[in-house]
């Protein structure tokens, strides 16, 4: 282990010819402490004493890909519920609240059983059951201290409190003054040891509003949902992370709790802390509080593999919005040995004003306002898509986008990229890595992600070795392998009628 780390540093030294950078990375290595607790939780602490603050990132190696059938949106719902408190946070009387919450679940199960009947549903009975359910909610609500979790974080100086759910993972993050480390450990461990599913059905309404905002009322959101539903057949990437409306309307707090117990287990989680933290004092605090998380087996891996696509697929959306064009090609997961080659293609095709897509479609052909190709759609953990998009200028069409994109792909398949292009990719990747070292929050996220994905945070730096090995021939080889007709899914918005230009009307 030591040997390979030294080798990384030496390689970087040679590659970058910037002794200072290498020194920084060597000192970086010395400032990192990693420990796996007896319950399986991995904790990384990086000391960065620039100011008396710290950031953390908790990564749960579970995302919407793990949503059970008919319960899409559950992983994301669980993320919302992680802000609702514990027996010690968010309640005036947990003993009584617990009883009340159990009644809510009973009442909901009865209501839901009636609601989903295909035949013989009794509207009167349904209304009665709905009322009983709502009354039970009102009774449980009496014990709630609203958003106490968030209030504790914010009133103790926490900033940037957030969480997100993707197809691949769920992440929790914020920053605090460094003297609050024990408070952080107490509430963050409590949140994942003893979550309480209070206010579940109101939060479900909140998530439905989130869906209306991000998907239903947004043309790009509508297209992406249709596009992924078409491009993937077997892998869960075909379903929306936010969930289908009917699933959101159906799943229960009990479902969320079951999901939590199955996936929020210490061996499935990594926490990275970065900032003014002395690991000698902080690690024992983390061990003390997070040691309370019960040991549980790591959830089984998803075994479904997307079968090869053998035909062009297309989704054409007639919409009021302006046209947009996208096409995607299946590629293997991030563990594929060619992962860095895909990154090279992304960089050369899309990074900035020197990129091929910009120069060809935007600058020279003057047909697009923006155009790019990128990997990692909609995730990277499983086989996913390399996608290209074009945003036509007024008066230009999706067909022109398709043609121009195809020309660029063809060029990638038949001609080597230039030395300058390849070198630019390598230089920029290294510089981006250095730039990323300046932020506690960014570093915490990177360390947690690489530790989770590769079992070792050092892969964040070792990745540069893979980047250095990318050759022109690799790019042609991969382009020829992946960018084929039968591996393509096309998506587009075609404008059906011009909406009247809205202006606010009214007064008094």
């Amino acid at each position, binding site marked *: 282990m030591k040997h390979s780390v030294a080798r990384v540093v030496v390689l970087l030294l040679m590659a970058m010819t910037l002794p200072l950078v290498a020194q920084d990375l060597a000192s970086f290595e010395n400032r990192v402490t990693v420990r796996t607790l007896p319950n399986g939780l991995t904790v990384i602490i990086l000391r960065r004493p620039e100011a008396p603050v710290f950031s953390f990132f908790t990564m749960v190696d579970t995302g919407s890909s793990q949503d059970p059938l008919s319960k899409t949106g559950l992983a994301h719902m669980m993320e919302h519920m992680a802000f609702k408190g514990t027996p010690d946070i968010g309640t005036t009387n947990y003993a009584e609240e617990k009883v009340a919450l159990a009644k809510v679940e009973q009442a909901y199960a009865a209501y839901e059983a009636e609601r989903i009947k295909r035949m013989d549903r009794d509207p009167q009975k349904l209304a009665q059951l709905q009322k009983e359910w709502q009354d039970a909610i009102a009774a449980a609500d009496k014990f709630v201290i609203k958003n106490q979790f968030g209030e504790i974080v914010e009133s103790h100086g926490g900033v940037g409190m957030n969480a997100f759910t993707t197809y691949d993972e769920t992440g929790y993050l914020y920053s605090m003054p460094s003297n609050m480390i024990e408070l952080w450990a107490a509430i963050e461990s409590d949140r994942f040891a003893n979550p309480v599913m209070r206010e579940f059905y109101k939060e479900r309404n*909140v998530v439905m509003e989130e869906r209306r905002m991000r998907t*239903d009322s947004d043309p790009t959101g509508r297209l992406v949902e249709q596009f992924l539903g078409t491009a993937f057949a077997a892998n869960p990437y075909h379903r929306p992370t936010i969930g289908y409306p009917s699933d959101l309307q159906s799943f229960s707090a009990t479902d969320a709790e079951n999901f939590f117990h199955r996936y929020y287990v210490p061996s499935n989680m990594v926490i990275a802390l970065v900032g003014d933290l002395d690991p000698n004092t902080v690690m024992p605090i983390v061990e003390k509080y997070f040691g309370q998380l019960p040991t549980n087996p790591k959830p089984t891996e998803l075994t479904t593999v997307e079968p090869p696509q053998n035909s062009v697929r297309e989704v054409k959306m007639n919409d009021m*919005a302006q046209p947009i064009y996208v096409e995607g090609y299946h590629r293997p997961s991030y563990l594929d040995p060619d992962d860095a080659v895909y990154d090279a293609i992304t960089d050369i095709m899309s990074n900035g004003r020197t990129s091929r897509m910009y120069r060809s479609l935007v600058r020279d052909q*003057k047909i697009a306002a923006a155009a790019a190709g990128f990997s990692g759609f909609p995730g990277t953990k499983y086989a996913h898509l390399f996608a290209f998009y074009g945003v036509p200028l007024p008066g230009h069409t999706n067909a022109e986008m398709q043609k121009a994109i195809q020309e660029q792909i063809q060029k990638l398949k038949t001609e080597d990229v230039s030395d300058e292009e390849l070198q630019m990719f390598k230089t920029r990747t290294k510089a981006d890595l250095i*730039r990323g*070292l300046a932020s506690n929050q960014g570093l915490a996220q990177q360390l947690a992600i690489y530790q989770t994905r590769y079992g070792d945070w050092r892969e964040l730096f070792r990745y540069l070795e893979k980047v250095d090995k990318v050759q022109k021939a690799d790019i042609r080889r991969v382009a020829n392998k992946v960018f084929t007709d039968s591996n393509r899914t096309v998506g587009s918005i075609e404008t059906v009628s011009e909406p009247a230009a*809205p202006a606010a009307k009214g007064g008094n």
Partner: protein
Amino acid sequence: MRATRVSFMLLFVVLLSVFASAQLTPWNKLTFPPLPAFQPQEPTRIQLANGMVIFLQPDHELPLISATAMVRGGSISEPAEKTGLVSLYGDVWRTGGTKAKTGDQMDDFLEARAAKIETSDGADSTSISLNCLKGDFDAVFEMYLDLLHNPDFRADKLELAKRQAYTGIARRNDEVSSIVGRESARLAYGKDNPFAREEEYATIAAVKREDLVAWHKQYTNPNNIIFGISGDFDPKEMEAKLRKAFEEWPKGPQAKDPDIKFAGAKPGYYFVLKSDVNQSSIAMVDLGIRRDNPDYFAVSVMNEIFGGGFSSRLFNNVRATKGLAYSVGGGVGSSFNHPGMTRIQMQTKSESTVSGIQALYEEIDLMHGKAPDSIELKRAKDQILNSFIFRFDTPGKVLREKMTYEFYHYPLDFLERYRGEIEKVTADQVQQVAR
């Protein structure tokens, strides 16, 4: 000997962990050590004879250097019939290249070094910035100076920027958020107010290359510039470099703030119909305040109580309790040199539009009717004061604060004063400003 020590250590660890697990302190019983004293590094301020102000902020953590020049004058000073001029200028200044090099040649040179030189535009300023590895600084800075002094605004890049602007206009009704943002500003400031007026096909088409050249000549002068640089450099050497680069630059016309009238919003209900969505986006808007208003501090506390963050009333009541919205928030807006925009907004399903509006009114009435209790007041102040460190936890943030105060002629210790003034805010003051 060694084995004994190891097993002793093990035993100790085991004992410690058993002891520890029996002793999980609940969050509300914890006490905290004081935050270690932290003096953020202040940048050095230098004013040249030609009026240019320079801030130097060395930061040796990483081998990078970044610099920005804020230039007085922005879109509020452009003629109404050429709305969009400054937006085009902020783009073509960079893409149009210099007399010596096209923008494309600059792209090739910079991207090969993973370096950036970019220009941008705003309501009252434009800017030109650089970011590079320290080893490339001299070469990148030379190009930066060339662009600062000799931009060429080539016609092909102006055309490109215009095409982008036309696309923006063609697509501006696709998304609810862009409609509500635009219309909110027009209602709060008035549709012809420079802070709210919109680019149109005709106003973009009216902009000529000469307009960009003239703008540059009029505004981009040392006496209108605040230049800040941070990163891994020796301050003495850097100061000498910058003096050499900028001292000989002659003064030009002084930028003046335009005289803008703010009439205030005309009360009413205004509707925009959009048939392809299932959610209403609701915004209540009005003029806000300037930050040099003595009420600014009480307003900051009120905003925290009313609509800022996870523990605000709007979040608690409209989102968590009523489940009416995912996105809800807002407060009285503030800006440095003009009234900010007060905006309270939410998005809710079409059928609950009315109950959404009522829920917002309830919260506003409550804010008007009753001073916050001492717990709520303390919580809001704690939120501001305990997170205060995050306003200056990196040298770059400190530099940006100082440049901003310099730009708007605010006291350079405005941030320090802010902390003191927040501590003094009372519940009655909060209720007063709410009214």
